């Protein structure tokens, strides 16, 4: 088993290296070698790293129509018994260390198939803050299966290509494909973007003019997405009455929820819960950058599931430096929803039992849903 990797040897084979040097044994070794190679390529157990829609196609590959079992591949749930990792789906920055760990836990000889655009390059999420621009930035990929998602037959084709590669590699005849110099270190798509600063805007304009096309920036006409005026329902009236009488609020905007003072927000939640609004629907924050500092608006919605499914909504406006009382003591569901708002927007909830990041890695810098956060902010080690 000449296990030559293009980047040196990934694994060692003590028996082979000992026996090949014994004169007269080379024939025996060669035949054992062929047998092992044949085995290696015909019993590829798969470890599915299915994170999104490609995973569904992956399942279909194991199902009746394509039947990956035909070539001897079965799916094992543990990396210890797998030979191929099929990365099917978008890998986020938080997922990437886990994928790497699972890859490490697979025993040699091992192979990887990147299935679908997201796994190959990050697809059109590739410039966004949470996306790894291609799984080959963290582990060596042997076969890329294009598609969005690739259909099961394409994955089967990928497995066959992998078999060819294993045969060639273990026979020592594998030669890495020659790369064009400009794409040799390609970690993003080979294509430059339209907003690439190296592009001459004059060329773009000239090409458009030649084609007789209008400027693509021309407005497409006014779109009116606004629907009918919201109809006041009984629940809204009930809430309005409550807010008027108990909280002394007079301002009820027609198109959005009433604003409740920060210090009485917890009291309102408790009152509403006592009135039967027992279900927390959402906690959503929004960010308003202002010259004097960042203002946040946190919107809440409660629902009473029993009494005619009434909905109560209100907002709390946070001036720069202010925190908001957590609702986790009233509604258990507020716990993780508030964590999410903290994670993505940096809103601080006072007296929250466990205010940690929930979606992004613990060591993430900044809060990506703030308006001043650039979508393609640098993220180690990928960008």
């Amino acid at each position, binding site marked *: 088993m000449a296990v030559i990797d293009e980047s040196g040897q990934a694994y060692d084979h003590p028996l082979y290296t000992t026996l090949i040097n014994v004169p007269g044994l080379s024939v025996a070794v060669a035949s054992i070698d062929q047998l092992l190679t044949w085995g290696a390529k015909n019993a590829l157990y798969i470890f599915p790293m299915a994170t999104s829609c490609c995973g569904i196609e992956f399942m279909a590959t194991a199902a009746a129509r394509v039947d990956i079992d035909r070539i001897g591949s079965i799916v094992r749930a543990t990396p210890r018994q797998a030979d191929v990792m099929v990365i099917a789906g978008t890998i986020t920055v938080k997922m990437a260390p886990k994928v790497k760990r699972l890859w490490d836990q697979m025993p040699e000889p091992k192979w990887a198939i990147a299935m679908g655009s997201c796994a190959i390059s990050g697809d059109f999420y590739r410039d966004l803050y949470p996306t790894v621009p291609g799984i080959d930035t963290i582990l060596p990929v042997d076969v890329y299966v*294009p598609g969005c998602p690739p259909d099961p037959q394409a994955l089967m084709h990928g497995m066959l290509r992998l078999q060819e590669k294993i045969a060639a590699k273990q026979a020592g005849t594998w030669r890495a494909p020659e790369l064009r110099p400009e794409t040799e270190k390609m970690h993003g798509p080979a294509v430059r973007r339209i907003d690439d600063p190296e592009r001459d805007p004059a060329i773009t304009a000239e*090409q458009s003019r*030649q084609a007789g096309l209008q400027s693509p920036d021309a407005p497409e006409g006014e779109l009116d997405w606004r629907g009918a005026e919201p109809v006041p329902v009984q629940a809204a009236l009930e809430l309005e009455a409550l807010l008027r009488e108990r909280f002394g609020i007079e301002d009820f905007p027609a198109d959005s929820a009433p604003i409740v003072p920060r210090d009485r927000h917890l009291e309102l939640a408790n009152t509403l819960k006592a009135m039967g609004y027992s279900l927390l629907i959402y906690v959503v924050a929004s960010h308003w950058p202002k010259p004097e500092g960042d203002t946040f608006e946190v919107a809440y919605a409660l629902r009473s599931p029993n009494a005619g499914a009434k909905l109560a909504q209100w907002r709390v406006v946070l001036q720069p430096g202010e925190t908001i009382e957590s609702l986790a003591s009233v509604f258990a569901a507020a716990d993780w929803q508030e964590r999410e708002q903290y994670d993505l927007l940096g809103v601080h909830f006072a007296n929250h039992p466990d205010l940690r990041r929930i979606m992004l890695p613990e060591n993430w810098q900044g809060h990506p849903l703030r308006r001043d956060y650039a979508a393609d902010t640098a993220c180690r080690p990928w960008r």
Partner: protein
Amino acid sequence: MGYLLDSIRALGVTAKNIGRKPVTVQFPKVIRERQERYRTSFALLKDEQGEERCVGCLACERICPSQIIHMSSTKKESPVTGKKRGYLDDFTLDMTACIFCELCVQVCPFDAIVMLKVPHEPGYVREDLVLTMAKLYENAEKPLTWGNGTKLMEMQEPPKPAPAQAAAPVPAPAAAPVPAAVPVPAAAPAPAPVPVPASAAAAEPAKTEAP
């Protein structure tokens, strides 16, 4: 008891299945026939005079949601028509991040870029998935999908009053080749009435034998 009866029924179902013919399509031997509107991968077409259809108008490059199309072109005199028009210097379509939305085909005013029915081959390096201009023109030989820019745009326009001589029932757009003289979309300049693209798209049956 219910579990027992259900178990027996389950055993019956599997036993019945053993006698059935498997539905598996044995991939390398038999290539499964694609659906009518199945689309993957791309090709660039040439017209009947052997001229490249693409004039480098950037419509596809601009609309691509993944921003994976890149082209550059120069203006030259056409040896066929004698008029000045754009010619591609380079055209790259990066399949590593394509989402097969078909928008590039829909916006093409010259029916130059079309999609294929056969998927792009899996590759060993990312670069294998980059469709260069040469590869795109080679791909024109493969089975194409039915749709090109003109047909797709026609589909989305409101139905026009039928011309007097074409009173015959209009064939379904999916299967029928386009009539010789299609009305040109208003946006496009008219480089002669848009000729029928090699129209292999609709006519060519799906390949089902071994490659």
